[in-house]
Each structure stands twice: as C-alpha cells, then as structure tokens.
C-alpha cells in the first residue's frame, strides 16, 4: 500500500514536467511572431521588441524553458500583457470564485446523479427509471451554455426567482477575507448577504452540475445493476434480509467503488464547463478571466489558467486513486 502511494507520487513528476512543457510550447505555437500577435498589427517596432525581450523570445528555446521553470517555481506566472498586472496575484484573486462554483456543482452532481442511478437500478423499468434515464440521455446531449441561457430566461428573466448573473448583489459591501463568498459573508456575520450569495450560486452551480450528473447517473445505474445480480446479493436475499438492508448495506458500497474513479475524471469536464458557465453568468472567476484573456490575446493568462487547471486536475485524480486504494480492500497494490 505504502509502496503504491509512493509510486503514484513519484509517477506524478513526469506528468507535471510534461504539463509545464506543453504549456510552455503553447504560446510558442502561435503562428508567426508571438509578440506581434499579442500586441496587434498596429504595435510599434520598439514595443514588439521590448515584449520579445520581456518574454525572452530572443533566447534559445532551452534557455527560455529554464527561465520559465525558474519563474514558475518561484510562483511567478508573468505579467498580463493588457493590464500589466501580476498574473499570480490575479489568479489568487480569481481562483476562489471558481472553486466555490465547481465544488457546489460537484456536490450537487455527485449526490443527485448517484441517487438517481441507485434508485433507477433498484426500481428497474419503473416510471422513475425510465424518466430518469431519458433525462440523463438528454442531459448528456445538451450543450450546457444553452441550458444556462434557457434557465436564465425561464427563472431569472421571466419568473424573476433567481438572479441572472454575478456572485452577490452589487449594492452589498463584502469584506474579502477568504475569497469564498459564502465563507466571507458568514465571517462578517451578515446572514442576509449569505443568503444572497447562496441565491446567486444556485443557477450557475446547477447548470455546471449537469456536466457530471447525467453520466454519473448512468454509470451508477449500470454498476448497481451489475452488483444486484451477484451471488452474495442473492445469498443476502435468501437469508431473508430486508430489501433496504440489501441495497444500502450490501450492494451500494460495492456499486459505488467504480463510480469513485469516474468522479475524478469528471472534474475535467467541470473545469472546462466553468469557462462557459462563468462567461454566461458573469461569474468573476478563472473562467471569465481566461475567456477575456483569449479574446484579448493575453497569452500569459491563458497559459497560467491552463497550467493551474491541469495541475489541480492531476492532483485531484491522484487523491481519488489513492482514496480508491484505501476504499477497496480487495485490491492489493504493490
């Protein structure tokens, strides 16, 4: 077990190295002169030359990479070309908003998705199963940006139940301490603001959760059906155990094990979906930031955002794999 954990952690380094390499080459994949592309056609020759110097584009490639890595290890992600602000600073400011939304989306998606899957499997071919699986199929096939717009139209524009955008009412003054709106409002002791923040969070996180909810419901259902046909479940039945006990104590645990591995992979979908969701809901997180940077050709920001997302993704997946090793007593990792 310990060897497995160590091996997995050691195996992380080549992947992290590869991530930095790909991210490094990303802006060098720009056709033509990256500095010229970033500054636009009307930039003066001096400005372009200065930016080339600043980005180190005049150096040989390996020197550029070492400089890039050296800065990276010091937590320096460069400067925004448009705003001239420190990318690391902006990132720290933006990240909590995204984490807050992704976390809630994950919570909603996992809890509702697996519940639908389990109930559908137990009550196979019932109305619940049929409706659940048809919705899951529609959910997989639906563009989330479209769903977001339809929900905004239905619930925010027409019915005015939920706010269409933002993290909190603009009139509210919030002390920024952690950057997590729900935490900050609680720390201020302002219950009204907390509820308002929660209210703003509902639509974006529900929309984002639909990225993972349908696939999770389908996978859970399949795993659960598989487990319910196993011999030990029949044994449990023949012992006269109640169906509730069989499902909750015997089947569920084993059915959810393969589901755990899927959850880590789904985070990738959430991080990609966050760009779309944040853009639509004017959510001041990493997604909107990245999107604006893409439109403005502000590549250091694009670079930083891809790098950070990939790193988070890799670490979460490692955590999930290790959790799986702990949870599943049958598998011996050596």
């Amino acid at each position, binding site marked *: 077990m310990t060897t497995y954990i160590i091996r997995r952690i050691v195996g992380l380094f080549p992947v992290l190295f590869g991530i930095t390499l790909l991210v490094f080459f990303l802006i060098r994949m720009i056709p033509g002169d990256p500095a010229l592309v970033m500054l636009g056609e009307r930039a003066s020759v001096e400005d372009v030359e200065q930016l080339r110097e600043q980005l180190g584009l005049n150096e040989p490639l390996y020197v550029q990479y070492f400089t890039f890595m050296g800065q990276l290890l010091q937590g320096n992600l460069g400067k925004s070309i448009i705003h001239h602000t420190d990318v690391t600073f902006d990132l720290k400011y933006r990240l909590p908003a995204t984490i807050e939304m992704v976390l809630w989306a994950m919570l909603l998606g996992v809890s509702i998705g697996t519940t639908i899957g389990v109930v559908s499997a137990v009550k196979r071919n019932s109305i619940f199963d049929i409706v659940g699986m048809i919705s899951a199929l529609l959910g997989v*096939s639906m563009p989330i940006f479209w769903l977001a717009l339809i929900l905004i139209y239905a619930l925010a524009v027409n019915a005015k139940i939920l706010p269409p955008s933002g993290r909190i009412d603009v009139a509210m003054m919030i002390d920024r301490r952690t950057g997590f709106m729900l935490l900050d409002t609680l720390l201020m002791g302002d219950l009204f603001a907390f509820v308002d923040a929660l209210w703003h969070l509902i639509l974006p996180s529900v929309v984002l959760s639909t990225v993972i909810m349908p696939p999770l419901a389908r996978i859970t259902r399949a795993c659960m059906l598989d487990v319910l046909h196993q011999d030990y479940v029949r044994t449990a039945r023949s012992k006269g155990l109640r169906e509730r006990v069989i499902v909750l104590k015997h089947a569920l645990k084993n059915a959810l094990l393969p589901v755990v591995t899927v959850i880590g992979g789904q985070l990738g979908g959430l991080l990609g979906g966050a760009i779309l969701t944040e853009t639509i809901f004017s959510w001041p997180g990493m997604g909107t930031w990245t999107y604006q940077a893409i439109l403005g050709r502000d590549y250091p920001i694009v670079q930083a955002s891809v790098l950070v997302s990939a790193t988070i993704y890799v670490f979460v997946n490692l955590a999930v794999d290790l959790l799986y090793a702990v949870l599943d007593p049958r598998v011996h990792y050596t």
Partner: protein
Amino acid sequence: MLDTTAKEINRLAQDSVLSRKPRSLWGDAWRRMRYSITARIGMVVTLIIVLTAILSPIVDPYEPKLDADLDNARQPPSAEHIFGTDRLGRDIFRRIVHGASLSLSVGIVAVGTAGIAGTILGLVSGYFGGWTDMIIMRIMDILLAFPSMLLAIAIVAVRGNGLFNTIIAISFVGIPGYARLVRSMVLTLREQDFILAARMVGVRAPIIILRHILPNSLSPIIVNATLGIGGAILSAAALGFLGLGAQPPAPEWGSMISDGVPFLRQTPHMVFFPGMAIMLTVLGFNLLGDGLRDALDPQMRE
C-alpha cells in the same frame, strides 16, 4: 423404429442450423440493432441529419451573406418563418438546416482523425511494448492531464479562430482516449494463441497488427467513435458559442446561439432553436452509440 426417429430428429435439427445462413458478428449486431427501440430511434435521427446535411446545399442553394432582410429582423416564429428570424432577418430554420453539414463534418472529421491517430498509436504501443510503449503512453498521460475542453479552447486561442483550427483542437484532445482503449485491447489480444500461432509461422509484425489484431479490436473503437461524434459536436458548438469556431456569417449552431444572447429577454427563439438542433443531433449519435455498444457486445452473441 424409435431409434431411427431420434436420428431423424437429430439430423433435421443439425440441418436447420447448418442450412441457416451463417451470421457474422456484424450480421448479429445488425439484427439486434433493429430490435432495439433506442437504437432504431438513433439510426433514424442520425439518418435524417446526415441526409439534411448532404441534401441541403443541393435542394436549397444558400449564400448566408445574401440572405439578410433587415425589415424582418428578430421576428418570432410564424407561418412564413417557422423558427423565426435572426438579428439580420435571416430565416433561422434555413440557417439551422444549412448548419447541419458544418456540425456534422466537424464531428466526423475530428473523431475520424483522432480515432485513426489514436488507433495507430495504441496498436504500436501495445504490440511492441517496451520503450516505445513507455514513451507513447507517457505522452498520452500528459495530454490526459489537461481538461479536454480547456485544452481545445487554448489550442484554438493560440492557433487562431476558425473551423479548421476547431477541428484540429478537437481531434488533438481526442487522441489519447483512443490510444489507451486500443492499447488495452492489444494487450489482451497479444497473449492469445492465434497471435502466437501467426508469429510462429513467421508472419511479420505489421501484418499481424493489421490483419489479426486490428479487426478484433474494431468494435469498441467504433462504439467509442460514434459516442465521440456527439461529444465533438458539443465541443465544436461550445467553441462556436465562445466566438472561436466557425466565423460569421457561417450558420454554425453554437455561434447562432451566441448571436441571440443579447436579445434573450425579448426574442428567446434565437437561442432556443439552434440549441434544440444541437441537442437532437448529439442525442441521435448517443442513441446510436449506445445501441451499437449493446449490439456489438460479444457476450450477447446468439
């Protein structure tokens, strides 16, 4: 007497199996596809969309630039324009019909490229093992470490907007999935006796890979590719929505939705209908893929 009857029955029974036309795996799959309701719906929906994509330029030649009619901008659905008109007074139904070929070709070309490249890498990696395998799979691991949508967006952002770069980006992020799938198929096949036999009689590696291993790993590749087309169409629509995909005036469904966003409050039909088109198309491929998966499952062979 009794004995001859038993023999007779036995002979008849054998005859009926033997005289039956031999069924291949694909023949079996086709039979099962026709009996499954979901697979049938999937086949019908994809067929309609494929026909729409092929026939629309022939039946109704269309030049998006020349279709504007500003007097009729943003009209809600009516008898004349069943899906209403857009910002420039263009008929939305007509644009959706002509957008089918765009979405479909992105989906098919991107998945085809990713599928072929991934399959080649997976075959080579799995069959040769050793250092080749090690290097290829580590590169695939690195690509898989990026959230695919984000990587696709970043690639298009760097390479420049447009349909061609959309296809490149979506193909690129799709490769590692196929490489892994094919490699795991090869690893199980490689150890089987018929491969060993082929090697013993001196069949060369490329022939073994192409003639023996590839055909046996084809069905999961096809299932994944079919499901992948739906995913690729969704990604392309998302890129189009962000303004990174096909550029106006191309009737790309994702960009049609983003066209409607500023007017969501007054004329939601501009957002609604293109989204329905995306959903229906992706749904068709997903149903077809699910149906194929069930039908090609060798454990269900009759």
